[in-house]
């Protein structure tokens, strides 16, 4: 994949990613079933935490096409959610902070799902198809991720990759899609079974 030139950048802004949390999914991720004694504490903070997310998140997806061979995708909620979460934890408002953290994660997963059709349509107009999705830590090496970061940073100035491979802002994800001129199954969606983060609390498959 070396030696490619970034040719086109397309930004999808907040209008494509409304804050519409799936309440039951968020409570499922938190392990807060109806019988759980702390459920009421989390329910009591729901409205404030959602409002907080609406206020501090700046969702955007940046798609950077490298010729006709690959597409780099960077999704982020911006630095607002993690800053606000830390502030809430400093104020000992752990339930609201934790709820904001989970809401942010759920929104990032929603963005991933919502951006798939947007990107597929963008590619279709150019006569391109998305082949396989390369995930960090699996097919996408850290050196390759580093190589692709400068153009991402030109499009999203607050984004970055630490030297130990941690993306920032924290609520961000990055992947690369192989492109094809030949019609193929659109490989734009995340597949938990192929993800390197085996201990992810939101993993939808076992093993």
């Amino acid at each position, binding site marked *: 994949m070396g030696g490619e030139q970034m040719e086109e950048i397309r930004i999808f802004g907040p209008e494509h990613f409304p804050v519409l949390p799936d309440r039951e999914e968020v409570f499922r991720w938190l392990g807060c079933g109806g019988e759980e*004694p702390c459920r009421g504490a989390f329910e009591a903070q729901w409205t404030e935490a959602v409002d907080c997310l609406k206020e501090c998140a700046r969702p955007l997806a940046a798609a950077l096409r490298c010729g006709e061979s690959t597409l780099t995708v960077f999704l982020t909620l911006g630095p607002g959610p993690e800053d606000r979460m*830390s502030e809430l*934890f400093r104020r000992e408002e752990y*339930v609201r902070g934790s709820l904001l953290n989970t809401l942010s994660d759920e929104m990032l997963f929603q963005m991933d799902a919502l951006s798939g059709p947007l990107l597929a349509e963008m590619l279709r107009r150019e006569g391109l198809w998305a082949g396989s999705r390369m995930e960090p830590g699996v097919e996408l090496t850290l050196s390759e991720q580093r190589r692709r970061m400068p153009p991402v940073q030109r499009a999203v100035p607050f984004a970055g990759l630490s030297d130990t491979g941690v993306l920032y802002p924290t609520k961000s994800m990055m992947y690369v899609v192989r492109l094809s001129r030949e019609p193929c199954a659109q490989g734009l969606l995340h597949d938990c079974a192929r993800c390197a983060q085996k201990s992810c609390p939101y993993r939808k498959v076992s093993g």
Partner: protein
Amino acid sequence: MAEKMRLSAEESTSRQQLKAALFSGDRERVEALIRAAGADRAGAWREEILGELTGDVLAGRAPFSRLTAAAGAACAFPAENLPPAACLGSIRGNTSPTGRDYMRMLLRGRGVPFLDLGTDVPAEKFLSAVREQGVRFVICTVFSRLDFDRVRELEESAREQGLRDRFDLLISGAEMEREAGAPPLSDCGDHRAAAVAEWVVNRWRK
């Protein structure tokens, strides 16, 4: 004898009430129960209750969110004015504050005094806290596999400076498979935040 039994039953009820208030994240109720039972007695119950809950969380019998609610309600116990026992921060390279935030919560909920060094913290800053503030526990939060190399560098630097015997080194965050035969990097041996915090609490109380 009857009076003793009555007191014991009352105590058991109060302890149960404290447990229910903690688990439901009811800070005001916890405050009222501390006033009624006295800070020392209620503090001892808090230790038992949160210790048991941590065990349940680690065994998968209770969700981490219950520990979150309980830690928040436990902040009703006033923080003691003690020198910091622990310092915590995300190791240089880890720019995420999330693990650090949860570790703050777990320590504050148990009354452990700590220094928060922030995120993306260089090794020397942790070691300065050992040298200058006398902290006994260094807690590094990590996110990626490469963050462990940074913790390893911290440990080597501590050895070179003759500081390694002065503190326990703990890692909270991503799981990592060790090479066969390699010594564990963390003195706790478990990278889960709840396990690390419990380990610190138990040693600090001793």
